[in-house]
């Protein structure tokens, strides 16, 4: 059975099958399944509390699943966690470094934990310092670094042993745009080097830009999975139009719902969202209907189909909620 499972998963970097995990009464992950191909960036997208970190913690063998299993490079997270760890690099959501040690001391220590020693260790530490652009600050204490620099060291630690698979749990959370750009570039660079990246984020733009495949999670479940194009197709390639009115939306909404080319109308906090097939054709009708009801459109924002629209389509809520 084991050998069959290993053989079946040999061509898949990460195979996740029906993972469950509860914390008391709270079911954090409920039957999550997906496959990650070698050398791709796979995104787990979802709002805070969707179950992304719990899923990644189970895949990193930090948490034991209540049910289900996953295979990382053919190794079961249940039966062979040590083998999983040896092929894995984990970039945790929080900065997990020793602030009173220098960047070099941190990398050296973590390198030893991944089994590196001697000249090989020194070489890899120097390479990683170069890679994360901190060679000139190698001997500076991490505690004195900016948030972006710490993030880079945080990623560097996971690269020391040249892992086949890297988990990155919201690595851009709370950092400045420039550092964020650097990190996104480095993720692409890792993919180009042949590494498999499992990337969790609640930033739709990041998933859209980076990921070959995306699993959208909500309330501990994968509610959609596929390429960006496949996911967008779920909402029928509809364009999203966000509008605001100078009056109560009531009757205007009724009229818009009935308008030709409108597939869905929803409202939240005074903002009306209309999903349409062709915004050029529908927008004049929306203006016309509003004018007829003595309402004035005070703002319009047209958005091409994206993951935000997919999430809205699937859950009726915005991704950032």
């Amino acid at each position, binding site marked *: 059975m084991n050998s069959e499972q290993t053989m079946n998963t040999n061509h898949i970097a990460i195979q996740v099958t029906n993972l469950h995990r509860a914390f008391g009464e709270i079911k954090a992950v409920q039957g999550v399944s997906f496959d990650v191909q070698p050398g791709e960036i796979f995104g787990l997208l979802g709002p805070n509390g969707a179950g992304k970190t719990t899923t990644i913690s189970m895949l990193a063998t930090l948490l034991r699943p209540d049910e289900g299993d996953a295979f990382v490079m053919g190794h079961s997270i249940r039966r062979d966690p040590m083998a999983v760890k040896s092929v894995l690099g984990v970039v*945790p959501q929080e900065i997990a470094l020793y602030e009173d040690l220098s960047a070099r001391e941190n990398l050296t220590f*973590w390198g030893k934990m991944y089994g590196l020693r001697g000249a090989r260790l020194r070489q890899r530490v120097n390479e990683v310092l170069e890679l994360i652009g901190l060679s000139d600050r190698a001997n500076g204490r991490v505690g004195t670094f900016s948030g972006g620099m710490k993030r880079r060291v945080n990623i560097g630690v996971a690269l020391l042993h040249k892992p086949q698979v890297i988990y990155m749990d919201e690595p851009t959370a709370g950092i400045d745009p420039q550092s964020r750009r650097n990190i996104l570039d480095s993720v692409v660079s890792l993919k180009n080097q042949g590494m498999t990246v499992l990337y969790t984020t609640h930033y739709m733009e990041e998933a859209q830009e980076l990921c070959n495949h995306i699993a959208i999670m909500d309330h501990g479940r994968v509610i959609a999975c596929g390429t960006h194009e496949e996911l967008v197709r779920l909402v029928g390639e509809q364009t999203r139009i966000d509008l605001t009115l100078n009056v109560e939306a009531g009757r205007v909404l009724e009229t818009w719902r009935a308008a030709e080319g409108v597939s869905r109308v929803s409202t939240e906090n005074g903002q009306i969202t209309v999903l349409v097939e062709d915004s050029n054709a529908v927008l004049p009708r929306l203006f016309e209907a509003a004018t007829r009801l003595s309402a004035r459109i005070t703002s319009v924002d047209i958005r091409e189909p994206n993951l935000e629209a997919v999430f809205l389509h699937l859950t009726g809520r915005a991704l950032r909620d």
Partner: protein
Amino acid sequence: MKILDIAFKDMLRSFRSMFALVFMFGIPLLMTGMFYVMFGNIASSGFNLPKTKVIIANLDEGGPRFQVSAKNIPGGKQARTMGELVVNVLQSKEMADLIQVSLAPSAESAHAAVDGQAAQVAIVIPADFSKKFADPDKQAVIEFYQDPTLTIGPSIIRSILNRFMDGMAGVKIAINVFMDEAPESDYYLTGDIIQRYLDISLVQTEDLAGTLLDEQAPTATPPSSQTSGSSASHSQTSQNMLLRIVGPIMGGMMVFYAFFTGTSTAQSILKEEEERTLPRLFTTPTPQAVILTGKFLSVFLTVLVQVVVLLLAGRLIFRIQWGALMSVTLAAAGIILTASSFGIFINSMLKSTKQGGAVFGGVLTMTGMLGMISIFAMNSPSAARLGNTVSLLVPQGWAIRGLLQAMNGAPVVDVGLTTLVMLVLSAAFFVIGVWRFNKRYA
């Protein structure tokens, strides 16, 4: 190998922390230094305990005739009465470094000298002192009158007198036994018996001052250099007195702060959990047992470094004699093991480092102070017994007991037994702590 990597990483972090260094080495040495300076002058080799002014009203009218040979009385004087013997002893050359004796014609004038602060202690030897000494049914008593605002000087005098009177009581018991057992025809020998037993007693307490001081100063340099009779120098005996005070204090400080270090170093497990480095360690191909063992080893090694440094610093800076190598090694091993395992145990009970503040402020201070009661009560015989018992309720008490045993030159077996108790305590703390941590991270 990874165990050592983790341990050395933790030690590097500990020894880079100024706060930790201050607590590990700075405060124990500073506190000891304060006591050292308080009781002596560190800059000079001699410790000048001020002389205690004693005024003696010797009203003793004598009793059965006896003569103590000059060679057996410190100061080389002869004594015709028991009162005279007391005066001679207190006026001896060995006492001259500590006591300045003057004589008063009456009890009133002696009391008046103390009341007028012309003397710190008045000793009144009653007229029937020798008679009562010779009477098996009566008790010979000396009146001790002191300035109530003073402690150290009078307590030294009281200690010397007590010792002297204890010796004399032994003599009296010997006489009583003779009187009970010997036929009446031999009673004429009583004077000789008194003389003989006084000789023995005084020979045994030859160089009374030096002996007393030496016994009270176990932390001093080896006895052979102390008990050279009348050659005992003022600076040496003063130094003994200083070390008698400073040695146990330094030992107590070392134990107190070793437990702090054990607990604060073991707290790095919780700290790493909160800093998320511990979960990250668990994502590396390093077994949990190796990670926790490395953390525990760092606690042990950090306390080891602290204790060794403090022992050496105590020896080099304050010239404290910790005892025979084997004894002090056993005691130190006990301290290190108990302090580190106690730290692991305490931290395994905590949910977060936030709770650590209460533990540091409460549990460690309370148990540390309880453990040190034996040191505080050391100079008070009545309190010492209770203090020793109470202090053994906490592991710090056992650690201090072992150290004091080593310092007092107790047999290695005794120190070993105390260390054995500490080993048992350590094993219990360690097993519970490891079990709880393993359960926590399972």
